[in-house]
């Protein structure tokens, strides 16, 4: 079994993945957004079909604003002159589009990536992880989360299941409420110096530090 990569190799690897994705797709990398869209694929497919029916962004934006208003239970504003809220979970891109006009290459499409590419992204993450685990000799089927989890959190199977489920719910709920995760806010967002991403990353990292110290020193 080989050791983990040194810090500089990890930094270069994560940076190359993020930069390459941004440049080659015209969009930011965001794993939690991919999860969210795949989980709600029926609605996302419906929005994509609407997308296909419109050839100009103005008509598309008005239709999506109406759909978003229905989703959020608010009143639709169809008189806007800029795209309001394309797709239920995305933010109004009008201001960003305006600021981009004077800043050269955009490298951020206003339209979400096709749904199929988001599902493929998640499956590819699994395959990439599998290749890494097998080639490094770390692949090992097991019914626990390893000695670290056993020593720091719990050695009891039932408690482990409860903790993992509760942790997963917090991760799923929290990332979507905050609008991103460690890849979307942490890498892509901080890489773009977005204030919202810097705040989110500081808060989720700071919280994880506090909880980890509690697990290590107190519990």
């Amino acid at each position, binding site marked *: 079994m080989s050791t983990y990569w040194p810090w500089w190799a990890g930094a270069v690897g994560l940076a190359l993945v993020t930069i390459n994705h941004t440049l080659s797709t015209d969009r930011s990398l965001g794993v939690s957004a991919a999860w969210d869209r795949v989980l709600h694929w029926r609605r996302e497919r419906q929005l994509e079909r609407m997308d296909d029916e419109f050839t100009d962004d103005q008509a598309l934006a008005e239709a999506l604003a109406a759909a978003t208003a229905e989703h959020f239970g608010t009143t639709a504003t169809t008189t806007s002159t800029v795209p309001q809220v394309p797709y239920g979970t995305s933010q109004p891109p009008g201001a960003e589009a305006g600021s981009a006009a004077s800043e050269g290459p955009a490298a951020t*499409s206003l339209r979400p990536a096709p749904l199929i590419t988001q599902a*493929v992204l998640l*499956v590819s993450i699994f395959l990439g992880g599998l290749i890494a685990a097998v080639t490094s000799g770390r*692949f090992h089927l097991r019914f626990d989360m390893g000695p670290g989890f056993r020593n720091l959190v719990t050695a009891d199977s039932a408690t482990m299941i409860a903790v993992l489920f509760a942790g997963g719910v917090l991760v799923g709920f929290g990332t979507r409420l905050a609008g991103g995760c460690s*890849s979307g*806010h942490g890498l892509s967002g901080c890489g*773009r110096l*977005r204030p919202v991403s810097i705040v989110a990353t500081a808060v989720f990292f700071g919280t994880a530090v506090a909880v980890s110290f509690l697990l290590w020193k107190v519990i």
Partner: protein
Amino acid sequence: MRTRGAVLLASIITGLALGYTVTNIGFGDYAELNRMFTFQDPRMLLSFVGAVVIIVCAFALLRVRRTPGRIHAGVVPGALLFGTGWAISGGCPAIPIIQVASGYLPALITIVGVIVGMRLCRWANARYFHLDRGSCGL
């Protein structure tokens, strides 16, 4: 505007490279993660911070758009919940996938939790919060 095929190919490359990279850094290893968050071992933290520094420089050189974003009411509470969940389960949304790929079968429960949490968030937002939360996927 990229074609659908180009975005699909890029997503495959990104997924494979991301899964390979985070697994080899050790983000799927709970003990390594706890050592990072408690500053016992700076290796993974430096990987993350180093990556952000490289990305900032590259985006500045390539003149990639700096998107301002909006700090809405869900950012801080959401990040608090996410940070807590990440510390106790060891999983941010990509990590349980690579944990399962490394053979940690209980991480499937984390994935079920993530799915429940995301569905719950969308339902709660539509019914109660009415927040435009933004999306990192654009």
